[in-house]
């Protein structure tokens, strides 16, 4: 039994539902979910939050967060979020999208929602592969990375270079905050949470569009052990997708 001297130092956030997730061992969605859940608690946003679910492994996020949620067609979450936020300005509206969803089929929706400066937050989980559909090439797949649809490795001449979404998004006028974090180490996870908080604050302070990319592991489709997959983020992904804040209007001293 519990010793009276023990002190509880780590709890499940109230915004996270007490149930097992469907994610593979070593997947970082669970970490990303937890960061979102912690912030919803800390910023007192849970009861007015509206999650726009998307397609892919993360579609079931709505089962793991204790918030109102609606499911969007693939790639369209920023448009659905636009409609929801315009209709209910008092809600805290956020999307949670993977790289195939956001950077491929949903490229138009993310660019224009960002450019309009929609008061929404976007959590962009980049694991350089289509997860749920079985490991196909994503717009963010690294050159040389093997997937089921580039079995010889992504070729720059045939498939183009991996798209750097945070760099692109940060150029758009309506964006108040854009940053890229990573979930491969405790230090990076802490920084990622700071970025997410900033992105969320852009909406609560009515500053503009908030965007955070999170480099994440997909051990199953990378065909790696969880440990090796985690190491790959630091060795291969971060050099191509540099971490950091790309735009922050609060530091620039004004709203967009």
């Amino acid at each position, binding site marked *: 039994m519990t010793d009276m001297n023990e002190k509880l130092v780590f709890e499940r956030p109230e915004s996270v539902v007490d149930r097992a997730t469907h994610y593979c061992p070593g997947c970082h969605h669970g970490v990303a979910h937890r960061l979102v859940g912690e912030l919803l608690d800390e910023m007192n946003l*849970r*009861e*007015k*939050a*509206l999650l*726009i*679910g998307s397609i892919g492994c993360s*579609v079931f996020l*709505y089962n793991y967060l*204790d*918030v*109102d*949620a*609606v*499911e*969007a*067609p693939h790639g*369209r979450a920023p*448009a*659905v*979020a*636009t*409609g*929801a*936020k*315009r*209709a*209910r300005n*008092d*809600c*805290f509206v956020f999307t949670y999208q993977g790289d195939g969803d956001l950077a491929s089929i949903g490229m*138009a*929706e993310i*660019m*224009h929602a960002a450019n*309009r400066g929609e008061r929404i937050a976007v959590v962009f989980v980049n694991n350089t592969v289509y997860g749920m559909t079985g490991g196909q090439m994503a717009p963010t797949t690294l050159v040389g990375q093997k997937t089921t649809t580039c079995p010889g490795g992504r070729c720059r001449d045939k498939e183009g270079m991996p798209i750097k979404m945070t760099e692109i998004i940060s150029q758009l006028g309506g964006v108040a905050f854009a940053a890229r974090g990573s979930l491969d180490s405790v230090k990076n996870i802490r920084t990622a949470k700071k970025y997410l908080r900033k992105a969320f604050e852009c909406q609560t302070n009515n500053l503009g569009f908030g965007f955070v990319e999170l480099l994440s592991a997909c051990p199953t489709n990378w065909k790696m052990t969880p440990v090796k997959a985690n190491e790959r983020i630091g060795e291969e992904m971060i050099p191509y997708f540099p971490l950091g804040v790309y735009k922050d209007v609060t530091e620039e001293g004004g709203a967009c």
Partner: protein
Amino acid sequence: MADKIFIKGNEAVARGALAAGCKCFFGYPITPQNDIPEFMSKAIVDAGGEFVQAESEVAAANMLLGAGATGVRSMTSSSSPGISLKQEAISYMAGSGIPAVVVNMNRGGPGLGDIGPAQGDYYQSTRGGGHGDYRLLVYAPATGQEAYDLTIKAFDMAFKYRNPVMILGDAILGQMKEPIVPWQPELPGDEEGAEWRLQGTGGREKRLIKSLFLEEGALAGQNQYLQAKYEKMQGEIEYEAFETDDADLIVCAYGSIGRIAKSAVRKLRKAGHKVGLFRPITLYPFPAAPLLEMAKAGKRFLTVEHNLGQMVDDVRLSIRTVADSDFFAIYPGNLPTPDEFEEPILKSLEGK
């Protein structure tokens, strides 16, 4: 508010939506419906609502999905190629029970077609249009006044059934100016959709609006629920029966073509021919029962459409146990006059 105003059918739709309490409009330019977003870009904002010119029809329809999920009365409008692009979101809205009004000012197709009037989107409108088994309640106004009235009704029906409702017009209806009498319906209070809408939990249990049903049997259950909803919609059928009682031949036509056919029927009546008009106002559900009654009474049928034969399927399905229907096509790309209907009507009347 009872004064007559002289406006285009497109504006009648927009004004009807505002009268119905529409608070969000998401549009994208395409001819011949541009008057609707242009009107809304000021009027809905003046009324305290939101207007977004989306980056595409795809995005506009998904904005509609997002706004509809929060229980706010919302609308989008487009024309044929644009409506094709909206079908993905419409299927999702139907699959997840999100109310919304979608306006299609039908132009000529297939493909880019032309910007003139046509009725080639009948199948797309009444058979779902997107993926999966679903239906929209579809209203086909024939006049500016009907466009106003039915748009108001469309919002009520969308929320009554938690389903997208379509207003299907064409370039004639949209572009023609005529007098209408606007009126103000009694609006629902803030409680509309309160039992399902999303606006943050605010202390209650969380809610989820979705169309994904992976557990074994769950999707079958959802489809049973949807089919039961469509069955209930059968109670909403509307139609106009003009000079049908003693008619030997019933001309079946809808929307603008129904209105032109009515002129032809009126003229032939004056000449002593026993013809009448059956004009479905709801295209889905199709008013099959009253049509069957006419068939049982021994009447003949001629379906006239501004396409190559689409609604005629529903006419034939309705009367198939006792009768059949002739068909006369006005090829999209042409604008018919009532006179052009006379020969096919007389031929059909004589059984030729």
